[in-house]
């Protein structure tokens, strides 16, 4: 690939690459219109191959940002399927529609004033009690989260459990798009995880000790020394640094313990 091509949109470059290898074309339907696209592409690349220029509904392209929530259906199956467009490989005759954004209710709150009481969440999201346990949210989660169980945990006042169950949530909003009770599950869970992190999980004592040491200037001298180092010397220091081995145990210590 030439340098000139590399500077272009990486997606476009990838599409060109696909064309060169002359993969087999398979039919898919994007918002109801039929396209023939090379097999093996992700839904997102297939959309770009078909001519869509994505300025929304695409973000990290790595399955973690939650921007490309997509619903699809296969012929002869009443089941609605969900996926992240950047992760899911196309299949023949898929009917695809992206739901990159859903107008979900997001409560406004001053976090500093919130406690860990279950009622904080009840007050901000009273609609959670409209849940009828239909489980559509769970079925719509591309991350495989037990969404309904996490809603139940919130209703039971168990913020820790809601935070635990929703840990893998990437806020794509597909649960909310399918909710019978019009709940904004992913915003409720984000609040639960914030409360859990700030008010419930025990503070790490060693972290407090480290912050204190930093504030007291324990490392200032080392940083100052480092700032004086010339670029070449800095590169050498970096390349020769002692890294923690992948298999290091809890008790691993570097040979040079001056900075501990």
């Amino acid at each position: 690939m030439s340098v000139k091509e590399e500077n272009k949109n990486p997606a476009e470059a990838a599409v060109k690459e696909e064309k060169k290898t002359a993969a087999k074309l398979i039919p898919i339907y994007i918002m109801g219109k039929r396209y023939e696209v090379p097999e093996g592409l992700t839904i997102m690349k297939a959309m770009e191959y078909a001519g869509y220029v994505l300025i929304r509904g695409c973000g990290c392209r790595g399955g973690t940002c939650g921007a490309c929530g997509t619903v699809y259906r296969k012929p002869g199956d009443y089941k609605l399927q969900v996926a992240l467009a950047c992760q899911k490989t196309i299949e023949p005759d898929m009917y695809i529609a992206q739901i990159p954004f859903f107008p979900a209710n997001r409560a406004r709150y001053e976090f500093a004033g919130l406690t860990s009481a279950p009622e904080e969440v009840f007050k901000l999201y009273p609609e959670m009690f409209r849940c009828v346990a239909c489980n559509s949210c769970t079925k719509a989660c591309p991350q495989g989260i037990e969404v309904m169980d996490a809603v139940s945990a919130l209703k039971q006042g168990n913020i820790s459990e809601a935070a635990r169950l929703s840990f893998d949530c990437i806020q794509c909003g597909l649960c909310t798009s399918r909710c019978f009770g019009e709940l904004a599950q992913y915003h409720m869970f984000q609040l639960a995880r914030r409360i859990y992190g700030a008010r419930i999980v025990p503070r790490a004592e060693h972290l407090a000790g480290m912050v204190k040491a930093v504030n007291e200037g324990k490392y200032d001298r080392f940083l100052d020394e480092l700032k004086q180092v010339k670029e070449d010397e800095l590169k050498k220091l970096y390349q020769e640094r002692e890294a923690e081995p992948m298999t290091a145990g809890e008790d691993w210590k570097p040979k040079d313990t001056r900075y501990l």
Partner: protein
Amino acid sequence: MSLAYYPGCTLKTKARNLEEPAIASLEVLGLKLEEIPRWNCCGAVYSLAEDDLIHQVAPVRNLIRVKELGKDKLATLCAFCFNTLKRANLLMKDNAEKRNTLNSFMDEEIDYGGEVKVVHILEVLRDEIGWEALAQKVKLPLRELKVAPYYGCTLLRPREVAIDSVDNPTILREFLKALGASPVDFPESTRCCGSYQIISSPDDISEYARPILNSALRHGAEALVLTCPLCDYNLARGQKELIKKQSGLREMPLFYFTQLLALALGLGPQVCHFELNHGSPESLLKEKNLLSQSESFQPIGG
């Protein structure tokens, strides 16, 4: 022996004083309450609309969790959860068409056909432990405590889910007698507390509570015993408003039956969580020597 157990959301938040003394007491009586996994809301209130099947999904899903455990009985503690779960169970057992619709809607779950028996903890005490055996375990008899049994609606109505005679229930009276207390019968013991009507008509709360509380007081009750967090909320709030309106009305403590159970079994006031009660029963319990003079708890209930 262990018993599959459904707590309900309120018992995990506002009504921990209903649940915690029950778990501790039943353990003393040789029964371990095993909370079922992944339970959700019971449905909160049984939907009476013939074609409203979506509101049956929540209770049925809980019953499926019990079937998945391989258990055939589910014990409940909240009277409202008991009612919704037992009625949804009957629907699944008796109505083939609705059963099929619900099973096919919940196609990610195993099929359910009413295999689980839903019981209330009071029935467990009566039928599996027995009043005599219970009386023998009592360490601190609630002597001279005059308690009026208040049933409310959901343990007795409709008839097909009733845990006792609909017209003349005695289960709470027998329960209180086993604990050594003096049950006070009164004619309003099955009158409605206002239920969820209070949400749409909050001003009516004292008018629902008035006949119940007045009748219990007139018949000599010193306290009411309850089985339901909604009755507790409505009667306690109603009582507060009545006291505001007619000064001089004595505040009558409201107990959950499980609090009196734990107290009589000698498990101590901490297990009973009296601090969560609406209005403090402290002075009454001290007067009856059921609480040491040095004990004290600050009510945090609203």
